[in-house]
């Protein structure tokens, strides 16, 4: 993907606005200049990563930093929550815990995966309340191709009452348990003449042994846990840990006040002091970008193409190489990069199925992959980039990779006379924790 001249100019204008930053030397001055509060560019980058699953462009950082509005953070959060990127990114997160994949051990099958993903993404965009979402998943009956949400009662590794109980309680209560098996003892599936179509229905039996009765439990005695589950999930996504009791109560309260909707909860989370802390000890916890997010960021920066494939022997499924990794509906379709960087298999729906820990193999790839090196070459050989002066190239790379301009000693370090080419600079930035992590 070529970088437009307009983008360069927009990035360049950000430099002047952030001029104060350019003279900063210490890390504290760069990342947390205001009494431990994160720098504005960092807040902007965090919000883009946490809401949209991507890093901001130089123009977007520029716009945010330049804004004099006292509500600029709230305005940005509102804007991003209404974006397509938000729906894409949170659909991916929902699909993780709803186990959306076509092949073993879940076996939703491709057509069902696509309609189900489309439905999930739509509910996120419309911000369907959590209790209504659960009710729709539990009450729906019919064809896996025509009634997307019935796939919830198919997405279990074991389709016994116990297996369904485990799958459903993992998704709705964050607790894999078989103790609710009786509510799923009447759930049945039958084939049709259409290949891989399946009808979900309820067999005859007592009314208190049904998913509807389980919903009554969720809204009755299980309500605290039922409300806590999505709240804890959001805490995990943002901070990489479960909320402690006091914090959980505050967040759950905000969730309740917001009508059990995701967007008001996120607005609340992003308005908290904790979210505005600078990085480092006692500050905002650094986490490596999700596999899909890192893949998309690298492909956007360098114009690289992805290489998706299905690991299942049949059917073979391929996606265009320009498809965002965040938007890959099917957990059975993946790439070597996504596997390497810990994309979850979506077999269990548990939180820790996604692995964002850095490994030696990942660092080997980032250090030394000839594909990445070629991709970086494509970036710096782009005509618009090549025409910039060496110093502007450095500034541009910092803006694009780190969402900030280089400080004086960084510019000095990469001075032309030190004979470090733009591709090498890009390589250095790519291998930095500041780039790879959401800080």
């Amino acid at each position, binding site marked *: 993907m070529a970088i437009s001249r307009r983008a360069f100019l927009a990035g360049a204008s950000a430099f002047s606005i952030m001029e104060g930053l350019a003279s900063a030397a210490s890390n504290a001055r760069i990342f947390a200049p205001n009494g431990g509060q994160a720098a504005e560019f960092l807040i902007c980058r965090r919000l883009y990563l946490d809401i949209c699953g991507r890093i901001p462009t130089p123009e977007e950082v520029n716009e945010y930093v330049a804004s004099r509005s006292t509500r600029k953070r709230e305005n940005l959060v509102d804007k991003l929550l209404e974006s397509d990127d938000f729906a894409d990114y949170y659909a991916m997160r929902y699909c993780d815990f709803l186990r959306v994949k076509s092949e073993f051990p879940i076996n939703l099958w491709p057509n069902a995966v696509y309609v189900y993903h489309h439905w999930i993404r739509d509910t996120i965009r419309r911000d369907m309340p959590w209790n209504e979402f659960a009710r729709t998943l539990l009450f729906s009956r019919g064809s896996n191709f025509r009634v997307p949400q019935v796939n919830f009662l198919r997405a279990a590794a074991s389709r016994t009452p116990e297996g369904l109980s485990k799958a459903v309680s993992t998704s709705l209560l964050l607790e894999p348990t078989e103790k609710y098996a009786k509510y799923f003892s009447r759930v049945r599936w039958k084939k049709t003449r259409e290949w891989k179509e399946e009808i979900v229905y309820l067999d005859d039996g007592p009314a208190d042994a049904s998913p509807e009765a389980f919903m009554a439990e969720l809204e009755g005695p299980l309500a605290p846990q039922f409300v806590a589950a999505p709240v804890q999930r959001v805490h995990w996504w943002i901070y990489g840990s479960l909320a402690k009791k006091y914090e959980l109560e505050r967040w759950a309260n905000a969730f309740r006040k917001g009508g059990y909707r995701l967007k008001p909860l996120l607005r609340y989370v992003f308005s908290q002091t904790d979210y505005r802390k600078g990085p480092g000890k006692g500050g905002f916890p650094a986490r490596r970008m999700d596999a899909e997010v890192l893949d998309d960021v690298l492909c956007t920066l360098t114009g690289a193409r992805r290489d998706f494939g299905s*690991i299942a022997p049949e059917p073979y499924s391929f996606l265009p190489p320009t498809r965002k990794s965040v938007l890959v509906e099917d957990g059975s379709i993946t790439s070597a990069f996504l596997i390497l960087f810990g994309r979850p298999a979506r077999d269990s729906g548990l939180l820790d199925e996604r692995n964002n820990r850095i490994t030696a193999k990942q660092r080997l790839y980032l250090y030394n992959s000839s594909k990445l090196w070629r991709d970086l070459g494509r970036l710096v050989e782009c005509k618009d980039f090549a025409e910039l002066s060496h110093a502007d190239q450095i500034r541009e790379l910092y803006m694009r990779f780190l969402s900030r301009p280089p400080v004086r000693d960084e510019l000095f370090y990469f001075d032309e006379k030190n004979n470090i080419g733009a591709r090498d600079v890009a390589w250095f930035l790519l291998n930095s924790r500041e780039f790879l992590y959401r800080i």
Partner: protein
Amino acid sequence: MNTNKQNKAPEPAKRGFAKSVIEIWLWGGPCQLETFDPKPDAPHDYNNGLKSIKSASGFELHEWLPELAKCSNLYSIIRSMTHRYPGHETATYLMQTGRNPGGGVTYPALGALISSSRVKGPGKGNSVQSGLLYEGDLPPFVILTHAKGRFSEVGFLGEAYAPLVTGGRASAKRFEVDGIVPPGGLTREQIIDRFGRASRIDRLPPDAEFEAAGAAAREIILGKAAETFDLTREKEQTRKRYGTNPAGTSYTEIGQQLLVARRLVEYGVPYISINYSGWDSHKRHFETMNRPTHEMDKAVSALLQDLNERGLLDSTIVWLSGEFGRVPKVDRQPPWNGGRNHFPRCFSALVAGGGFKGGQVVGESDETTDHVKERPVTPQDFLGSIMELAGVDPDDRLPNPMWLKEYGPVMNPKVKSQCGRLKEIYV
């Protein structure tokens, strides 16, 4: 341990187990007639008038394999390989995993099974023999130079057992192995300088996990592991031995890949797979297959002799096959114009070293290779034999990932073996 086998006393080991396996995968399906099962007396439409030559061990090989004919005491051939899948993907899956395609679960290929049994970790197989544990810096499963694609070699075993796929070109001036050998032709000093700068440039305070992962990665890049891929450390005579172009001005890619494979065996890597494509000769078969067959002849014979001279052949299994063979009767009609299509009913394979006898022929085809005449060998028998000699029990349960405990044994029990594993050519 498989509960069904708990009461069965283990057979005493009669031989040492092979430490390493080299798989030479002829992607596309080589023709049995122009390799290990020539039929010079068949009609012209079957052999195109080409002849056979007698090997040093007395069996016939196609005239395009003169070098392999000279060292036939080092390997054995199977002329009765058979299965029923004529599609590349399904046949490859079967010939790599020993499992029939379908069923919604992807089983691990032989390379992942054997290599995962050699390392410590949750996926450790039950059949690891003492002395076979691998603790090198390189991953235990290395693929030269491109993955097979279409299906995952590692199957459900997961990323921890995924192979290192080298990328790059072994015959290039510098073999740039993805992740191991830095791209851009940097010297060791330049690489060290780079790492130093990278750590200085990172503005964030050090993080133990990030640093440890980086240190482990740098160890691989700067340690002995990376040298394994450096073919400039070999004598030119050795590099040429594995094959050059007819003018002698450049090395063949397959030859240099097999030389890297030998170096990886010396390093201790348990499983090396070479994916050698270009054998899918639907059109103009005889014109297109002459060159790769000669290159394969030169490279494989050099590998076997080199391993033997270095005392490594006894502890290294070498196997060579494609996913199937080719239709015996040449199709001279357009658009094939003298091509051969896919043919799984009867084809050939080669095994050597690591407990396999040399100079033997297993099975027999009919006058044209249309049918197996004697001693059919299924993919399950074939792969099971390799596993057995590599010290991994093919009847044992899989490494037991949490959600697959009900699956096993490794080789599909539903496939009835017709004649069993290749025990007649075990040493």
